[in-house]
């Protein structure tokens, strides 16, 4: 497995760059992964990332995009729980990019 070095510590990622050990995750790693994805993190990005961390904590899976969108709409309001908003934050897909930055595995069923 490939290793990446962040702030003097090395971490294992899979062949697609997803963090192997969920527990390794911290804000520095998130910043590194975001940089790799060419995403500049703002408070709005963190809101989604933190939401995903909580979702994973509760259900032990990374949600499919449709499920994520619906769950965000429920918790943060319809102005955030929609495709346009989430794709503006994560152009290559909220499930793929946001999950990666949040240190979660790739969503099940995501191709």
């Amino acid at each position, binding site marked *: 497995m490939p290793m990446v070095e962040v702030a003097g510590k090395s971490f294992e990622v899979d062949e697609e760059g997803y963090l192997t050990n969920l527990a390794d995750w911290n804000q520095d790693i998130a910043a590194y992964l975001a940089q790799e994805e060419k995403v500049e993190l703002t408070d709005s990005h963190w809101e989604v990332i933190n939401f995903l961390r909580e979702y994973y904590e509760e*259900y032990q899976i990374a949600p*499919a995009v449709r*499920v994520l969108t*619906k769950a965000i709409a429920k918790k943060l309001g319809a102005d955030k729980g929609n495709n346009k908003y989430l794709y503006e934050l994560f152009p290559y897909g909220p499930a793929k990019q946001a999950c990666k930055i949040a240190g979660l595995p790739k969503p099940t*069923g995501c191709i």
Partner: protein
Amino acid sequence: MFTSSENIDPDDEGGVIKKFMFVNRKAPYGTIYALEGLEVVLISAAFEQDVSLAFVDDGVYELKKGQDTKALGQKNFSPTYRALEGYDIEKLYVERESMEFRGLTEDDLLVDVQIVSAAEMADLMVEQDVVISF
């Protein structure tokens, strides 16, 4: 997967919605069947079919509350059954005979289910277009 579906008019797909039942028969750990079955169910949700789950035999243990897998060194995936509702998978059937034979009641289960008799379960299976057993 998601972006391409935006360009598809659902009326143009000509898709017939089929009734799929995933039958869970095995204990959650010890074999990979339960976890694989659950993953297939989650993937199937993307295809917007009429999905239901059946839990029979040792499969009822998959829904048991309070699973602790530390000693097994495996991930406890039971919380994921609670995510099914968010995937619009709301038809979960548990066979009464299997449940009672194992000394379990509805209160021991971590999600809301419909308890059905073996005969009712057989009827449900007959109604399906596709039955996949794990």
